[in-house]
């Protein structure tokens, strides 16, 4: 039951989008949820100078990234000084192996997990299961998704694709909970089910929202208390995160936290904010005896090499870009077939999986700019989408794995013809004259366009002609 079932792939984006669009339940669940989240965000920022705060957030992230190698070393030194053991993983597989090894060293048979997208990214649960270690998700949404043998459909709200009735069915079928529409009753049932597991778990695995270099502190943002239980109840805590999550100063955390919670769920503060700075100290009665930090690269340092793509690493994982994306709202998170869906997924996953697998993601945007408008750290998401489109159709000499995968002679020839026409004004005017004269012959079916719309018809006379005529009338 614990294995993440990968039924969705980015290669099948079109088929998955078709299925989602045909599914009224999915459509309604996402529309309602995203409308709610957009409203809450708007409300939460209503008395803030949002532009100033976003610029501050962007500057903090940019400053951290500009010093990333140094800050990571500083983080390591300060964590180690605090008693937190730091491990470096080049990729997800290495990270999984390290975490498995730590578990095995402690003879662990069960792991309780706080929410961590990086652990989703590297399919940690499946790896642990292969080693005979059971991993249980303790975030309520993650728990439901795991019970239902699915993957998260949203990075903040993993089970947002499910409605109350569906959740009631899952809880009934998988845990024997009585069917109910009472959300509080279901939450209480899940709480009771999880409570035992926190106490019994041998190891707790969590993510990290901000890793503070100057103090060696790991910050964890959460609402359910499961993060605190995960990181304090079991004797061993392993935090796992991407190398980009580091910030320079403790003072950098406050603005980022203010942006994160408001952008994500419209909350002014979350119910829990954990700052983990060491294992249990001598004389203390609780807390883990060991704390580990696993820093995962997984293609991030390659992104870091490119001055433009680097902006991708600013992300603080709030999910606001998905909440405001008209494409995500229509097709839902699973359609993307990637750990991170929506706009951030479309600009991040090509680096993690290569453009070959993800080539349909950067084009799955109308470039409406809603994502870039709400991003709390001002990532120019539309520009990065265009950049990745360019990498996909380019000559293959790019900074992204799989560059050039979408290049087709036919398409290049079409754009070259267009270029020729648009750089030869006489030919351009001639073409519109011909199109106008034969407009009766214009096709009424234009492939996919006319499945939903009527075909546009060339005008009888182009603007060039109309203006010439207008001038003649004025002169006469």
């Amino acid at each position, binding site marked *: 039951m614990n294995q993440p079932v990968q039924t969705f792939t980015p290669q099948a984006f079109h088929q998955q989008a078709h299925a989602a669009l045909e599914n009224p339940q999915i459509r309604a669940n996402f529309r309602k949820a995203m409308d709610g989240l957009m409203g809450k965000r708007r409300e939460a920022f209503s008395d803030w100078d949002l532009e100033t705060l976003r610029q501050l957030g962007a500057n903090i992230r940019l400053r951290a990234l500009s010093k990333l190698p140094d800050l990571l070393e500083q983080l390591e030194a300060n964590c180690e000084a605090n008693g937190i053991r730091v491990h470096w993983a080049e990729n997800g597989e290495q990270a999984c192996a390290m975490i498995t090894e730590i578990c095995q060293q402690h003879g662990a048979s069960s792991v309780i997990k706080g929410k961590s997208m990086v652990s989703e990214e590297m399919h940690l649960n499946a790896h642990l299961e292969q080693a005979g270690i059971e991993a249980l998700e303790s975030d309520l949404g993650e728990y439901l998704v795991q019970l239902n043998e699915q993957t998260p459909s949203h990075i903040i709200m993993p089970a947002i694709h499910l409605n109350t009735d569906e959740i009631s069915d899952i809880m009934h079928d998988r845990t024997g909970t009585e069917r109910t529409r009472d959300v509080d009753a279901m939450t209480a049932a899940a709480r009771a089910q999880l409570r035992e597991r926190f106490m019994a778990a041998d190891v707790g695995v969590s993510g990290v929202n901000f890793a503070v270099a100057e103090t060696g502190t790991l910050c964890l943002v959460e609402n359910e208390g499961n993060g605190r239980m995960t990181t304090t109840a079991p004797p061993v805590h392993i935090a796992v995160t991407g190398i980009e999550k580091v910030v320079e100063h403790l003072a950098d955390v406050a603005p980022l936290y203010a942006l994160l919670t408001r952008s994500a769920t419209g909350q002014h503060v979350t119910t829990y904010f954990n700052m983990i700075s060491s294992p249990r100290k001598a004389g203390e009665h609780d807390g883990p005896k060991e704390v580990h930090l696993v820093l995962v690269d997984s293609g991030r340092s390659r992104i870091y090499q490119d001055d433009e793509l680097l902006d991708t690493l600013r992300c603080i994982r709030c999910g606001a870009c998905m909440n405001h994306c*008209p494409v995500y709202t229509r097709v839902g998170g699973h359609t993307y077939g990637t750990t991170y869906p929506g706009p951030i997924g479309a600009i991040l996953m090509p680096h993690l999986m290569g453009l070959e697998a993800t080539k349909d993601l950067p084009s799955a945007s*109308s*470039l409406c*700019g809603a994502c870039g*408008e709400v991003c709390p750290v001002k990532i120019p998401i539309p520009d990065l989408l265009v950049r990745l489109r360019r990498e996909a159709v380019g000559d293959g000499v790019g900074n992204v794995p799989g560059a050039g995968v979408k290049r087709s002679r036919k398409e290049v020839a079409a754009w070259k013809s267009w270029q020729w026409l*648009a750089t030869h*004004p006489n030919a351009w005017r001639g073409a*519109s004259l011909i199109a106008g004269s034969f407009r009766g012959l214009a096709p009424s079916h234009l492939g*996919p366009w*006319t499945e939903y719309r009527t075909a546009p018809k060339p005008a009888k006379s182009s603007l060039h002609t109309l203006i010439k005529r207008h001038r003649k009338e004025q002169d006469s």
Partner: protein
Amino acid sequence: MTAVKLYPPRPDKVYLFGTCLIDMLYPEAGLDSLRLLEREGIEVIYPQDQTCCGQPAYTSGYHSEAREVARAQLDLFPGPWPIIVPSGSCGGMMRTHYPDLFAGTEDEAKATELASRVFELTEFLVHVCHLTLDDRGAPEKVAMHTSCSARREMGLADTGPALLQRLGHVELVEQERASECCGFGGTFAVRHPEVSGAMVEDKSRALEAAGADHFVTSDCGCLMNIGGRLAHRDSSLKGEHIASYLWRRTS
């Protein structure tokens, strides 16, 4: 997203960049833009060698092709006068992306200078012409769809509605989720037809539900998309470019 722009005083002359979509499919919108400007006593120069701003290739990732097409426009506007573009999407391309597209090339300075003279039509009518309108049409309700490029790339969410509010007999009604994209997105509509189709269906339903007699937009891409969708299911709701609407009601 755009920095605050300081608007110049009303000039004697302007250039009109008509855009390829208007040129070939909606030329009346271009002519009506010209008429609105001329009525303000402004001489309008329409360089006959203009073709396309290059955006279709740019957003599809074909930047060298886009650059060559853009380069062919750079020398058409040699005077110091503003360049008026009746489209937020082409205007956004020229104002925002030309400097990037030509960065590091010998035409960088020229492209950047040209970009600084680009104005979207409704922006120019509101902020530079301070246009007043004498509405001669019958009372009706109108809804406006502002394109995403006008709204977000150029920061012009308000200029279109501001002009409509100056029409004495017109009641401006707002559709639900007015700021949401109509689903056009250039080649997006062809590459992801089903998603685009779902978006334009929602947009056209929202416009109908707003109880508008008519809808206007400042971008012909959106017009082709939403108008095409409404016509496809024989809706009585019709749309037009805001320049044509303003001209029709005040001439």
